[in-house]
């Protein structure tokens, strides 16, 4: 079972009745697994893809305020979006257990930052659990709900990508359904506390943390060490999360029981007594944790600590096993102790092979590709602000200049417009944003742009799905998380509702119309009575809806007119086209090609042509 499946299982076993989420790697599979397992076990639960993480947080939080157990799941940068809610809810608390699952991405593999949710937990003053394996995540959820309910405080579970996307053999017995009646008790002094009362709530929270800390000291299942009684050690390791699993394997593999390990599963509030005892009996202690330092900061006296502050552990990137071996080994050598390995195995200098960098690319037939191509062609000197999603890969087509966070295509376009306008510089600005991202956090920015009369072209790349994170439905599709029909919210209505007066819908595969519409839209942004010009470039995602996206595949081939200008496989960057070394021209890989037929329109020599009698050119 995938780690995210184990988390979903843990939620159901803990009697969590409601789960809300917004998809984001590595958290995306938790909610679908929660729905699948609920069905499988015949448990009545409610789960929703919310429009963004803040929304997900508030919805699940209210469920807990009403007395039921609930949870929300998101990726670590999603928690930034919900930060406002997290900070305030920590003071107010809730009645039913409430667990926030925020998945970190050391590396990063699929995120804008390597931020550490455990530090966010410290800022918000809420307890946090840090699992080292999928099974442990499942077990921690039970304890997280008990703590949350006993102390009426939100609790964070912080799995990292290797827990979420780790696979482990996990079995389970029949899950006992839990039903707590929803009973919201009116108490405005608490649920709507004014600043005067917030001081007392803050004081109460600090008191709760003290008591939770005591509980954590005794939570041997997650916080424990391997020291023998009455024995002192020259070197020990304090570790949490996935690093602990790696350390444990290393100690076992090399048979080094002489190195004690303190595992911390609840880094905040830190079980200080346990840490103090460990530190007292080890001359030097190495701290290994991801993604940033929390344990290390919380240890007041760091004179015996080897970690990031002392320069022994890298400050960025994932702590992969070979790296952990290396830093432990270096510390042992430095301390004059027996190292784990005397000499490291020789490695092959892979960089000398000059292997091509295989960066991610838009898929063959991706509807975003012609749109970026058209944007770049019609506004070569433009500023291209973009956003988070598959379409960030428009980078490769030279049509993405910025990517800050969810929704920033629109807000940054606004800033660029005002910065240049006040200096009387006229530069076309094209913002690209996906449909799901627009629903997530596009409207507030768009309302602001219209209200403050910014001028730019807004292209909404509508592929009718949240593609990057694994094909979750959107409000524009009107399908809910469990596959049932929801209310469909047409993008057109939403954009018009924001006050945008120019709105065109174009099929993303229709390159000529895209180019002419972009020109017209640019004119509109320059008119005295003009404004924001919005274009919905719509075409179904070729991965999610292959048949709908390419109902009539066009089989194409490269003719002898080809002069190997490379435009089709370099600038247009179709992965199905490459250089045919033998014939000195471009060649179509018929296995990869989906038959979208767009390349027929981009070849300057007209060398890419539909093959007669094969499919009907759409």
């Amino acid at each position, binding site marked *: 079972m*995938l780690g995210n499946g184990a988390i979903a299982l843990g939620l159901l076993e803990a009697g969590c009745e409601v789960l809300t989420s917004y998809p984001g*790697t*590595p958290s*995306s*599979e938790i909610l679908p697994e929660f729905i699948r397992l609920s069905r499988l076990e015949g448990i009545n639960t409610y789960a929703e893809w919310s429009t963004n993480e803040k929304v997900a947080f508030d919805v699940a939080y209210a469920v807990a305020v009403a007395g039921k157990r609930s949870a929300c799941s998101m990726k670590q940068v999603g928690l930034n979006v919900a930060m406002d809610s997290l900070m305030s809810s920590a003071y107010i608390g809730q009645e039913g257990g409430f667990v926030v699952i925020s998945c970190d991405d050391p590396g990063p*593999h*699929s995120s804008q930052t390597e931020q550490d949710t455990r530090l966010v937990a410290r800022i918000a003053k809420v307890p946090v659990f840090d699992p*080292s*394996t999928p099974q442990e995540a499942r077990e921690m959820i039970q304890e997280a709900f008990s703590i949350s309910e006993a102390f009426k405080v939100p609790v964070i579970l912080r799995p990292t990508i*290797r827990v979420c*996307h*780790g*696979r*482990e*053999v996990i079995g389970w017995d029949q899950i006992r359904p839990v039903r707590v009646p929803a009973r919201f008790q009116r108490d405005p002094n608490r649920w709507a506390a004014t600043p005067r009362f917030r001081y007392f709530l803050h004081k109460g929270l600090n008191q709760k943390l003290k008591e939770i800390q005591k509980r954590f000291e005794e939570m041997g299942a997650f916080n424990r060490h391997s020291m023998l009684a009455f024995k002192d050690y020259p070197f020990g390791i304090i570790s949490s999360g*996935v690093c*602990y*699993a*790696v350390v*444990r*394997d290393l100690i076992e593999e090399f048979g080094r029981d002489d190195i004690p390990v303190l595992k911390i599963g609840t880094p905040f509030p830190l079980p200080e007594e346990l840490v103090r005892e460990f530190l007292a009996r080890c001359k030097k202690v190495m701290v290994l944790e991801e993604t940033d330092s929390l344990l290390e900061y919380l240890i007041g006296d760091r004179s015996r600590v080897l970690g990031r502050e002392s320069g022994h552990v890298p400050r960025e990137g994932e702590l*992969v*096993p*070979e790296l952990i*071996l290396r830093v432990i080994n270096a510390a042992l050598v430095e301390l004059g102790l027996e190292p784990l390995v005397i000499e*490291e*195995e*020789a*490695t*092959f200098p*892979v960089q*000398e*092979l000059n*292997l*091509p960098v*295989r*960066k*991610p*690319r*838009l*898929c063959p037939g991706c509807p975003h590709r012609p749109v970026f191509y058209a944007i770049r062609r019609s506004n070569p000197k433009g500023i291209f602000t973009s956003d988070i999603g*598959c379409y*960030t*890969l428009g980078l490769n087509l030279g049509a993405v200049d910025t990517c800050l966070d969810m929704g920033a295509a629109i807000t940054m376009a606004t800033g660029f417009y005002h910065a240049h306008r006040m200096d009387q510089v006229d530069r076309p600005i094209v913002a690209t944003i996906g449909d799901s991202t627009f629903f997530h956090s596009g409207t507030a920015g768009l309302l602001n742009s219209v209200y403050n009369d910014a001028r730019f072209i807004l292209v909404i790349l509508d592929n009718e799905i949240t593609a*990057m*994170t*694994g094909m979750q439905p959107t409000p524009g599709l009107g399908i809910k998380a469990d596959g049932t029909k929801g209310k469909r919210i047409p993008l057109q209505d939403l954009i018009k509702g924001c006050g945008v007066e120019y709105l065109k819908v174009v099929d993303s595969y229709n390159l000529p119309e895209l180019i002419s519409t972009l020109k017209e839209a640019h004119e509109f942004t320059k008119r005295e009575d003009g404004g924001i010009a919005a274009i919905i470039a719509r075409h179904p995602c070729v991965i999610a809806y292959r048949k709908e996206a390419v109902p009539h595949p066009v089989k194409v081939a490269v003719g002898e007119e080809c002069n190997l200008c490379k435009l089709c496989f370099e600038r247009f960057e179709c*992965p199905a086209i490459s250089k045919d070394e033998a014939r000195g021209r471009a060649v179509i890989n018929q*296995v990869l090609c989906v038959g979208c037929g767009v390349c027929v329109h981009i070849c300057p020599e007209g060398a890419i042509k539909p093959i007669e009698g094969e499919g009907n050119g759409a």
Partner: protein
Amino acid sequence: MEHKVYDIILSGLGGQGILFLSKILAEAAMREGYLVRGAETHGMAQRGGSVIGHLRIGDVSSSLIRQNCADCLLSLDEIEAYRNINYLKPEGVLCVNTPKEDFPIRQVKEFLEKKKIRAYGFDCLSLAIKEGMAQSTNIGLIGFSLGLGFLPIPYNQVVSVIQDLSKGPSKEKNLKILEEAYREGKRIQGDSN
């Protein structure tokens, strides 16, 4: 299994079916009664870029394989195989989907020999295309590896997993690809003995 743990690195490009390849091997190992841990790549990295997966058969805590420790490296792409070559331990096995007769490239040969790593290449893609199932190149690579006989999983167990996991008409084709690749692996293994 002589080792306490059998470590497999899977590499290739996003979209080549590494997740499914990993799933089949993991499921087969589980049915053989082994504990299994794996680490997968999802999200942005899946879109055509380099992808790597870890699969650990045995009783361990971490899902990640350390460099120099993998018993074998199965790669759906030759370039990705070289990129991840340092995961292989001495006397490990490199098994790659490649159409090239002269695999592996000259530059790595000496290194592989020194480390006593055995390298095998087979054109799994052409075999899969022959059955009209280009996306089943991964099945071909499993069959080939099983034929070579270094994986701690019996062929019949993988057959039954594919029977359960494949759907519709692709099931028979997948089994055929598996069998043909398996025979090829067996043939090569027989030659070298």
